[in-house]
């Protein structure tokens, strides 16, 4: 399939009014030369799957599930900041990042679900802890603003090279989702970099908190770059996690050096999220996420 899946240069939050994106999406989401502003939406992916235009194999679906779960759990965590941020600009910024991540999650989960006849919501709301495939980093509690920034700094520096590479996936839908996501994650990277520098170079207290935040989050870096049988089988469709480590190290070191922060002594934690082994935190995240949907199973919202 070589067709364009929406306009990769468009963003879901910036839709041009003149091109009637809805009807375009319905009529021609999969047609080449879609007008600018026709961003790829989860609804388009669901439609493509229904029409048989996009159906992932088992491995691609499981891979999409990992990426979708990472983004979903992070979005859920970040959403908690909205109305609690240190300044209004950060309510907006963290809300925006949460919204981006949720958008990526919806696309990946919709695509993954199409392999098993499940919707994004069935996957998000009706799986149990061990069925989630997110890495431990994403479920770590927000902590204070510095801990959240530390988590964001790691996530963005992982997701940016990941999506940049995934743009070249042999799977056209993974490539299309990544093409939209990479531009947004580039902004997340900038946001977290600025804050790492500010907090490290601000006051004594902010520096102490930034160091504490990194100490909390850095142990979960290792799991992100672990290869396994699935990532090996994916070939050109996925990105081998270990291949991203050098770029992660380079990009993070550049910022950490400028901030005069040293993370080299922090030990790596045992992961297991990709196999469904999670920390104590995920159960609580899911309890909140899923409670209403599970109170009314089968209801439409």
């Amino acid at each position: 399939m070589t067709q364009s899946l929406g306009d990769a240069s468009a963003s879901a939050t910036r839709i041009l009014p003149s091109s009637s994106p809805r009807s375009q999406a319905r009529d021609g989401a999969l047609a080449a030369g879609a007008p600018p502003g026709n961003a790829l939406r989860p609804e388009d992916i669901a439609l493509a799957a229904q029409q048989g235009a996009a159906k992932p194999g088992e491995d691609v679906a499981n891979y999409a599930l990992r990426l979708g779960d990472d983004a979903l759990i992070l979005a859920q965590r970040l959403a908690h900041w909205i109305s609690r941020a240190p300044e209004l600009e950060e309510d907006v910024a963290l809300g925006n990042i949460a919204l981006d991540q949720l958008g990526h999650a919806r696309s990946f989960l919709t695509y993954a679900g199409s392999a098993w006849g499940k919707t994004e919501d069935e996957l998000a709301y009706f799986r149990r802890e061990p069925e989630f495939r997110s890495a431990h980093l994403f479920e770590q509690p927000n902590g204070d603003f510095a801990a959240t920034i530390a988590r964001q700094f790691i996530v963005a520096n992982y997701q940016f090279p990941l999506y940049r590479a995934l743009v070249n996936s042999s799977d056209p839908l993974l490539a299309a989702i990544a093409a939209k996501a990479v531009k947004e994650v580039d902004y997340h990277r900038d946001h977290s970099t600025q804050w790492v520098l500010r907090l490290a170079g601000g006051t004594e207290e902010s520096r102490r908190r930034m160091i504490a935040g990194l100490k909390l989050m850095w142990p979960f870096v290792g799991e992100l770059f672990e290869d396994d049988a699935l990532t090996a089988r994916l070939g050109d469709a996925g990105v081998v996690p270990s291949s991203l480590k050098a770029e992660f190290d380079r990009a993070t070191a550049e910022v950490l050096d400028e901030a005069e922060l040293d993370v080299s002594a922090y030990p790596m934690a045992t992961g297991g999220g990709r196999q469904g082994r999670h920390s104590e935190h995920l159960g609580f995240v899911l309890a909140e996420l899923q409670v209403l949907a599970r109170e009314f199973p089968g209801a439409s919202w």
Partner: protein
Amino acid sequence: MAHEAPSEADAAGAENFERILAKDSRVEPKDWMPDAYRRSLVRQISQHAHSEIIGMQPEANWITRAPSLKRKSILMAKVQDEAGHGLYLYSAAETLGTSRDEMMDALVQGTARYSSIFNYPTVTWADMGAIGWMVDGAAICNQVPLCRASYGPYGRAMVRVCKEESFHQRQGFEILLELANGTPEQRAMAQDAVNRWYAPSLMMFGPPDDDSPNSKQSMAWNIKRFSNDELRNRFVGMLVEQVKVLGLTLPDDEVRFNEDTKKWEHGPLDWEEFKEVLAGRGPCNAQRLERRRSAHEDGAWVREAASAYAEKQAAEHAQKVAA
């Protein structure tokens, strides 16, 4: 400097101000304006900004529990819009010479007001629908005329706010429509929310005209265009039509169209409750203020760090330039 008779500049300014009002044109930040006009605007715009900021809380209450990912994403975007509205309203108020810090301090110290409606709790998901449909609906009725407010920065801010509010109202209506057409439990949830939010949303327009101390002056200054009761009646008429589409009912047997006045009328409202909530004795006043205070205080070290860092960067830059 002792108080003196109005200077020539003041007299010319006052004359210009009256001319602007007479032409129904805009007063801009650098124009001369009466102190009372300035104070009244700072009060109104900052209250409006505070309402946006406090108003984030009852809805943020459901973001993490939204029952579908699509609804979660819409709700998140909506609450984020409200932070944005707060930001540009604070900016509009700043053009009158009061800083955002001062306004924020007044809010967390409990000396500033915000819309009483946000002191009611959001206890079910249907409240997200009722807030969008009724609370944002009432806000739109109030705010569309404010797009023509005589103070330029306020009027322009309201143009943008209103565009986003109309999206908010549609999403609220859609939530209720989905629930009203859902399972019996969902439908009951929707009706219950409409019942609870009806009277508080009507009271958002403020006290009845004969008991509204600031309205007359505000209308003379071309800030307010319609009276509280006029707007409230218009809003009731809108609800009457739209509730039919929902297949739900309004908890008011006395809603009727008065053929003589050609206006919609509603049953009596409990203005004692309104005054109680306004005086700080509503169900969530303390909780809302406490959340704002703790966010503000917990974030103080972050804001201090950002300022300290910016100062260091500026000093470094100055040193480089000097070298």
